């Protein structure tokens, strides 16, 4: 084949390459999103409900907890089948919106609390105000968490579980250094510096690209009395200034800019970090995977005020379902205090309401106390939360890793935040 001479050989190669490239283009276009839609038959007096969530497949600890909860419901309610579908967190909201555009929504969606407003605005989830009023249990919920379900004065969801961020600390390391968990942010910086030795760092938190990496800085900003919508402020300068100092001084690893919360947990579990800011999600995982690790949990340090970041999932009913009554029954059942009492410890989450008895575990008690100080975006900030939080992470990145001054990083981020808030219709 190659003996025919340069010209035709080259032309052949070019054509073959063209076919290859075209094939690659087609596969790239065709590999969009595959729906592994489960279909259920509703004959014989049975009801099949679909539920989409991002907790993981049943073979993961978080996915198993949810599966057990759904199994319990099915056991207690003959004739009802719930078919869960796991969609990874990063794809969840996008998938819901795309499915809604295609008219193919589940009956129930277990959504991130912060996306409730966007999904209500998009017409993906329905107004539950009448049902909630008839239910009459709204007063049992913590105000901040309940607020995430409110859109223009109507209720579009019911909280499923809540979570908050607190400080995990390595007891062995703190005892060796003769330290107690820090109660103020000034102490935090001092202790974290003392606890780091080049090999190990004093404090770890997630500062990864995107909204996930904004949590710790938002917590610090709130503690300084600041507002995430107004980051180019004195509180913003205090918060970002301290984080930048801690990273530059080696108290916090530069790697936080690449770590998600799972990575942070691993750093802590491997003894690479003496303290970490993380949610209750990792309580039993840490205990199971690292039984030899001596650790405990403390409230976040305070500055002008005590504050933490709320993490919450809400249950919602889609606008297109024909089984809204059955779906509501599932949601209301899931929120029964005795059901939550069994589910929450397994799921490593906290109750979003005040009448659930999950035992007297001291670590869970700390998280429950921390939850009382939780902050969540509201109003316009809620509608643009993903972008605003992404910009806040951008400020951390620019100041701690990109060589920008704290003032410039804050001013840049503020410009982008203002634009994002102005875009909210």
């Amino acid at each position, binding site marked *: 084949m190659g003996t025919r001479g340069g010209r035709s050989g*080259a032309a052949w190669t070019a054509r073959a390459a063209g076919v290859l490239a075209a094939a690659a283009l087609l596969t790239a276009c065709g590999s969009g999103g595959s729906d592994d839609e489960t279909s259920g038959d509703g004959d014989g007096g049975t009801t099949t409900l679909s539920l989409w969530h991002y907790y993981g497949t049943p073979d993961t600890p978080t996915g198993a907890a949810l599966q057990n909860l759904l199994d319990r419901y099915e056991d207690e309610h003959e004739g009802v089948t719930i078919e869960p579908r796991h969609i990874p967190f990063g794809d969840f909201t996008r998938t819901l919106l795309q499915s809604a555009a295609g008219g193919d929504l589940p009956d129930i969606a277990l959504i991130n609390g912060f996306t409730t407003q966007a999904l209500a*605005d998009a017409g993906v989830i329905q107004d539950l105000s009448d049902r909630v009023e008839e239910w009459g249990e709204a007063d049992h919920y913590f105000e901040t968490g309940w607020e995430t379900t409110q859109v223009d004065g109507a209720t579009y969801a019911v909280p499923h579980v809540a979570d908050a961020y607190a400080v995990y600390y390595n007891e062995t390391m703190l005892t060796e250094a003769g330290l107690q968990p820090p109660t103020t942010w000034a102490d935090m910086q001092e202790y974290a510096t003392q606890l780091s030795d080049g090999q190990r760092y004093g404090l770890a938190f997630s500062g990864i690209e995107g909204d996930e990496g904004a949590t710790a800085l938002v917590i610090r900003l709130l503690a300084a009395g600041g507002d995430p919508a107004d980051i180019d402020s004195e509180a913003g300068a205090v918060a970002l200034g301290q984080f930048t100092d801690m990273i530059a001084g080696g108290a916090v690893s530069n*790697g936080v800019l690449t770590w998600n919360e799972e990575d942070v947990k691993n750093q802590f579990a491997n003894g690479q970090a003496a303290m970490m800011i993380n949610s209750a999600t990792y309580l039993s995982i840490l205990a199971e995977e690292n039984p030899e690790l001596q650790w405990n949990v403390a409230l976040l340090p305070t500055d002008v005020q005590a504050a933490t970041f709320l993490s919450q999932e809400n249950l919602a009913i889609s606008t297109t379902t024909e089984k809204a009554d059955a779906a509501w029954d599932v949601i209301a059942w899931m929120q029964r205090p005795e059901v939550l009492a069994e589910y929450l410890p397994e799921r490593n989450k906290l109750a979003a309401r005040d009448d659930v008895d999950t035992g007297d575990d001291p670590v869970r008690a700390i998280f429950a106390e921390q939850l009382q100080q939780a902050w969540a975006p509201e109003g316009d900030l809620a509608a643009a939360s993903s972008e605003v939080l992404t910009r806040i992470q*951008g400020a951390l*990145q620019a100041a701690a890793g990109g060589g920008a001054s704290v003032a410039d990083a804050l001013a840049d981020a503020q410009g982008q935040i203002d634009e994002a808030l102005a875009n909210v219709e």
Partner: protein
Amino acid sequence: MTTTVAPPGTASTTPARAPRRARRWGDHLFVVPAVVFVAATVLYPLIFNIDLSFRDVGVAQIVTGGAEWVGWENYTDQLSRDDFWHALVISLLYTGLAVAAAFALGMALAVYFNQRFPGRNVMRSLLLLAWILPTVVSANVWRWMLDGSYGLINTLLEAVGVVDGDVFWLARPVPALFAVVIATAWSFTPFIMILLLAGLQGIPDTLYEAATIDGAGAWRRFTSVTMPLLKPVNLTALLLCFISTFKTFDTVFLMTRGGPGEATMILPIYAYNEAFEFFRFDTGAVATTLMLIVPLGLSVFYFRSLRREETA
């Protein structure tokens, strides 16, 4: 495929024109499935996307419809944004560097493998692994290797005393950009090598023999025989590699998500963020439509030069 095979003699003796025309039309039917497939999977989304870019589509309109036609407003808005131009510059920088690196390496490997030596085919196949390895695997492997606390690269550099302590390569703007360039070049090199190798094997040995007799050394043979004759293949390889790299999303997204800051914010990730992170579907559509112009222009150039090559 386009000509029907008839037994010798029968074709010329068929007098009626109508059946022949009918048969020709029948032949066209065979391409219908391909046309339908392309229309459904490429043309429809493309046109839908362009339509979207001329409307005001936020989170409320994507589901319920009723998106208002706003003409060029989204485009003027997008073209006045620094973010967009920054993403374009990063995209061109990333693509240019990755293509240059992949081409240089691919050429070196192709020349090397064009010689006969034992184990040549095995080694060539092994190299192809980089090309066929799923990106989700290769990008994550690169990410781990570049990690500051447990990454291989840091450990090696520390061992030879180049760096001191943990260096998080992907947390720093310039190293992060070079890291995604290297990872991309690494995966494209075998593809370039295969193309160039096919071209090299089309160059007759006699030309090299003649050049050698004329006293040309190895470098002179490469610059005066190989490169001129390889020109069409080079062009093909460069263009195809440029187009595929320009629209790369997965490698960069998995390694840095466009960060740190906006250091690796290439256009595909910028468009993704606009549409699926911030739910501005209209500006996302504008970004993807504008993004199409560069590869489209290059494709036209490619097919033109291909045709010129064929007619020559």
